[in-house]
């Protein structure tokens, strides 16, 4: 097996007395799409947020392309990095939020170009050209000059995807990207994500869209109570689950 793009090992995370992640191991190969499903409160979102260090983990580690996120290793110790270095490493990871979190005072184009220019210090010409290309890719070329509030939810989420891709990240994390959308707008966002998956982007997606998981995922991961219960190809996990808890969950959502 080649080196994983994302390597999560023995991750524990507590909020006070509440242990939300209880020893999670997950490996994602380059170009693979991993879909995480599970009941609410099972720790899916916390795991995703730990991967780009929006949440600090208590034990274990997360590495992206062989590099620790948020820490520097010397011997057996992990030294927490300073904020500036964490921010720099984060630019290798794209993150798409449930509620988009576009910057409302910036135009669609400025939303996309902001981080590559200010965080990655890439030349403006190159970033502007890339933004044009990405907005075309998500079908919003005509909205480049609009402000986010002038767009529908589905359009806003597609801008958010373009914004994440503009960093040229090694992996893109999606935290329930369609949960805040009206039902008729879900499809357009999933289409963009499917095209992205076909193009070989490494993706980890937390979602309740089982259909999407079946169609696109290389690996489906079922989480419950802070642990991964089972993982495997969608044909196995979704159609012939081995665990009762997976079966119980699937019978409720299908």
């Amino acid at each position: 097996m080649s080196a994983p793009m994302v390597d999560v090992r023995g991750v524990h995370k507590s909020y006070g007395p509440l242990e939300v992640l209880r020893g999670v191991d997950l490996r994602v190969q380059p170009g693979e799409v991993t879909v995480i499903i599970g009941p609410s409160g099972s720790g899916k979102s916390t795991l995703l947020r730990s991967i780009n260090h929006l949440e600090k983990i208590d034990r274990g580690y997360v590495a992206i392309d062989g590099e620790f996120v948020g820490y520097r290793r010397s011997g057996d110790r992990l030294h927490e990095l300073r904020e500036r270095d964490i921010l720099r490493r984060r630019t290798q990871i794209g993150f798409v939020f449930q509620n988009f979190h576009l910057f409302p005072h910036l135009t669609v184009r400025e939303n996309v170009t902001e981080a590559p220019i200010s965080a990655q210090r890439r030349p403006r010409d190159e970033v502007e050209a890339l933004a044009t290309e990405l907005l075309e890719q998500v079908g919003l070329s005509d909205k480049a000059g609009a402000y986010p509030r002038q767009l529908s939810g589905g359009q806003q989420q597609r801008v958010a995807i373009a914004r994440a891709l503009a960093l040229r990240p090694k992996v893109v994390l999606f935290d329930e990207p369609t949960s805040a959308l009206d039902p008729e707008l879900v499809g357009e966002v999933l289409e963009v994500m499917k095209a992205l998956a076909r193009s070989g982007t490494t993706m980890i997606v937390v979602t309740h869209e089982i259909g999407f998981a079946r169609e696109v995922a290389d690996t489906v991961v079922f989480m419950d109570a802070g642990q991964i219960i089972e993982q495997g190809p969608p044909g196995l996990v979704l159609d012939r689950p081995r665990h009762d808890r997976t079966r119980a969950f699937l019978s409720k959502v299908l």
Partner: protein
Amino acid sequence: MTAPAVLEETAAESAGSLTVIKARHPGRWIAGAVVAVLLAMAVNALVTNPAWDWPVVGAYLFHPSVLHAVLFTVELTALGIVLGFLLGTVLALMRLSRVPLLASAAWGYVWLFRSVPLILQLLFWYNLAALYKQISFGVPFGPAFFSVGSMDLIGPVTAAALGLALHQAAYAAEIVRGGFLSVDPGQLEAAAALGIPRARQIFRIQLPQAMRSIVPAAGNEIIGLVKGTSVVYIMALPELFYQVQVIYNRNGRVIAMLLVAAIWYLVLTTVLSAAQYYVERRFGRGLARALPPTPVQRVRRILTVRRAARRQRPAGDGGGRR
């Protein structure tokens, strides 16, 4: 349901051309008339009573000494607001920082300078030389490189500007802090997830959004300070209020001179209110689906609609008059 009248279909109804008559509002007309009479009485009382001394007001409104005083008032306001909001922003960021000592120091500053009346603070600065004869620059608790007399460094004008700015900073700090707190935390999270550097997060992402709630409150403060500068009259500085007092002590026209001052304060406040409207529009970009029209745009729109209506009337089918 008892409405058999509806069943009788008239010719107009079948043609789908029932005429709409707007409701009448006699109460509104009466209320309007009462207010109009009261306004007329007020204007009459102002204009016809010779005690207001309008000719004297006219003679002194643009008197050079008054104009100088207006300029000085504007300068004091500008210094107080600019320095006040600069220091206030620093204090607000300290208050929001993760370093406890910075946060408590900022809290302490706001507590102190909000608690002591402005007039007292001004007198303290004015009398600083009595407290500290010399001010030295050098290593803290160590040797001084050079010293200056407090009197030379802090004259009355500096004392006034300093007093106003330090006092204003305490209020500005709370306004700016409130502005930052009003920004959705998701914005900062998104900025962090994108790896945008910390300073850039503050000034490019947070501050412009915070400005939407900072500007109206800051407008209040600026307008308050324009009039608040009048307290420096106790330091015998020639700002507007002090200057008109000097004049009426000489010529005895108290009411007329107070009117001169009032008119100038009105002018300054009007200019600032108009400026505030446009600044708010600037920071409102993207936060509403469409910006509200400016007064100029509004007038223009009404005129175009009127003109269009006038042009259409002769060409129409005269339906309204049927």
